[in-house]
């Protein structure tokens, strides 16, 4: 009874599921390829995992076979563990360099290749605009330049 009912609605459901899964996967992939923040890259990887999981669930439902959903549970639990491990790595990477930029870790490149750098900020030419000067209202606190550019605690 139930299988035939389900079967009638199954195909669009599968298509929708696969569609959503593909979108999630592609978003994750694009994120991995384009973003340089380690945490965002990690999130993107999770996104790809979830995309695969959605399509697994869709197929599982379509076939009436729970094996796929069991596998998804596995994926989720493995992803949770992996998240813990990966975040430890990210944390360690940050404490080494003080940065979350993936491009900071390029010392494994070929020795003869130049270090790849971000786009230079175009040099500013022309007169500095004059800004209004305000009256000094006390001592400004001493700022740590490194701390100002990156947060040292997350």
């Amino acid at each position, binding site marked *: 009874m139930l299988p035939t009912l389900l079967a009638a609605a199954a195909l669009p459901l599968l298509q929708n599921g696969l569609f959503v899964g593909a979108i999630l996967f592609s978003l994750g992939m694009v994120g991995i390829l384009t973003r340089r923040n380690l945490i965002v890259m990690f999130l993107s990887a999770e996104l790809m995992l979830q995309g695969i999981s959605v399509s697994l669930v869709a197929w599982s439902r379509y076939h009436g076979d729970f094996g796929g959903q069991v596998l998804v549970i596995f994926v989720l639990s493995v992803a949770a563990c992996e998240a813990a491990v990966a975040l430890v790595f990210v944390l360690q990477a940050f404490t080494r360099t003080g940065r979350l930029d993936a491009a900071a870790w390029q010392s494994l*490149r070929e020795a003869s290749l130049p270090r790849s750098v971000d786009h230079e900020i175009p040099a500013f030419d022309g007169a500095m605009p004059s800004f209004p000067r305000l009256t000094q209202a006390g001592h400004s606190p001493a700022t740590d330049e490194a701390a100002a550019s990156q947060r040292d605690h997350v």
Partner: protein
Amino acid sequence: MSPSQLLILVPLLPLLAALVTVIAGRRLGSRAHLPAIFGIAAAAIVAVSLVITTARSSGGGENPRPVDMVTTLWEWATVADAYEPEAGSPAAVPGTAIGADAHAARPLSIAVALRLDPLTATMLVIITGVGLLVAVYSIGYMHDDPGYPRFFALVAMFVFSMSMLVAASNFLLVYVFWEAVGACSYLLIGFWFCKPEAARAAKKAFLVNRVGDFGLAIGVFLLWLTYGTLDFHDTLSPDGTILPGILGQTRLADVSGYVGGLVGTAICLLLLLAACGKSAQLPLHVWLPDAMEGPTPASALIHAATMVTAGIYLIARCAPLYMACPGALVMVSIIGTTTALVAALIGTVQNDLKRVLAYSTISQLGYMFASLGTGTLLGFTAAIFHLLTHAFFKALLFLGAGSVMHSMGGVIDMRRFGGLRKLMPITAATFLVGSLALAGIAPFAGFFSKDEILASLHSKGWPDAHHAATGEHHALLPTPGLTGQTIHDVGYRGVSAQSDHALSSSAATGLDALNQPFVWQLLFWMALITAGLTAFYTFRAVFMTFTGPLRVPEEAGHHAHESPPVMTLPLLILAVPATLAGLALFSTESLSHFLAATPSFTAPSVLETATPAVFHWDLAIQGTLAAALGIVLAAVGHLGRRSDGPQMERWLGPFRPFLEHRMFIDQLYVGLIVKPLEAIAFLAAMFDRAFIDGIVRGVAWLPVATGAVVRRLQSGLVQRYALAGVIGVLAIIVILAWRL
């Protein structure tokens, strides 16, 4: 112990001595000569006892029985059914003795077998006897040399190899020890390997000998293909059939047991090439004069008395093979006589005492070859006789020269010393004895053996003078029992066969055509001239060294006195056989009767040439006159005050530089062989470096070049790697989609 067991001791004791010296030589220090001396001395005693045993069992007298005792130690290699004789091939004969399955396949079995026969026993006595005296002499000569133990190990090793060479009963074994004596010779010539000349001379000797060894190797292959065995002796297969060996009784008894024609001549010429290499005959003689760079005792032992006689031994051993190929025999004589004359001519202008003796050795070996080439029983025994006497007097002369060299502080140029008879009387007297023997003056050893050689050549040149009945000379084919009755035949059976049914092969016919009386007459005259030249250069050396005012080079230092007793004693001992051996052996004819019992000489083809031993007064007078003329000329040029330099050589005019440069033979070889080979080697090296190395380097360069491109992808940026992964996955998907 049976004689064949005793025979094993002769090589075994020197081998043990060599091993002991190698292992414990450094510990023995200045006593390192003891194992070699005792080993070789024991071997010499055994060798003498073997001669007595052999002489007894041959019966002695006019009609000796063939003596042939073979001991097989172990089978070195066996290949079953290696050779299948064709019907009618010489491997299938001889006749009835072989049994029913004459055409059955036979094994190739290389047995380590030693043989005892008169020829071997004679050679063993020479090797161990001279070896012992040289070893004793070396105690004095080589003292405080840093390589003292090495020298004695090598001498013992050499005595082992040489006795195995003459005792081996298998052509492959002969080849092995042929190489072994060559290796010992190489090591001893290059004994002072820090000296560049010595190292070069050793290399030269080794390389020139390789040419001869090549001939021996090919000759052995041909023998195997022709006769289907390499054994000298007959072997009994388990089913009771006799496999006739190449020089075994079965084949020897058979009249048609040996191959003539093209194949036979090729075998004989290849063996002759081998003999020429080892015995320093004309095309390959260049190594021997240079070999004098080695220590003088080694020169005396190896390059005068024993190793260089290996070629004589080989040809004498293969006498029946040669008897089937008259052309090859004539070549032996022609090469021998030419070598004798050429070496004697070069020897007349040498100023280095050892070089004079070296050329004299080449010349005397040439005599032996000339005698072997006559192909008569007289010729073969005369060659061995001369080998025996020559071993004694040439070892004596070399050791005397070594004694001079020792006291002159290593100077050997005869122009720089003189009048040494006052300084070293024993050396002078014994050297004079050796010189008289070498020159062939009446009671001394060389006279009798040289006379026999001249007689054997003379009998070929003027057969009528020796034998009245030439007309019936191939009427009889005697059986071995008929030895005593003189068969009036000095022609070859091969020649008479040739006139009956002309030989098909043109090469053999071409060589056989040389077997003419006038060729032999020419060879006889050449030999006679050589006798005169021999006396001249020998006494030139004697006069330059020992007469005239006393002159000593400054290098001599405190050495300038008579050598110690350990060196003069061997000289005195050797002087005895150098004086008496000839007379004793000739007058009793004991050596020729003894040798006639050698299986090789009991072949019908050899036996039918037997002649009664006669002392030829006319030849003796001619030979003595030639020698006397030589001595007188030497005395005119070099006796007394004129002993200090090249007096005679002024008369030679333009020939002098020609002879002094050794007839430019070395230069000829350099121009014809060494330089072209060097050019080819240079081209090959260029090809190797440019082309072959280029390919290898190209292969090595390929990954480098690929890497130079691909390494740019390794940017260290995670995103790029991820991109590469994504592209790869996409590519796989595209390919899979395509395939599906």
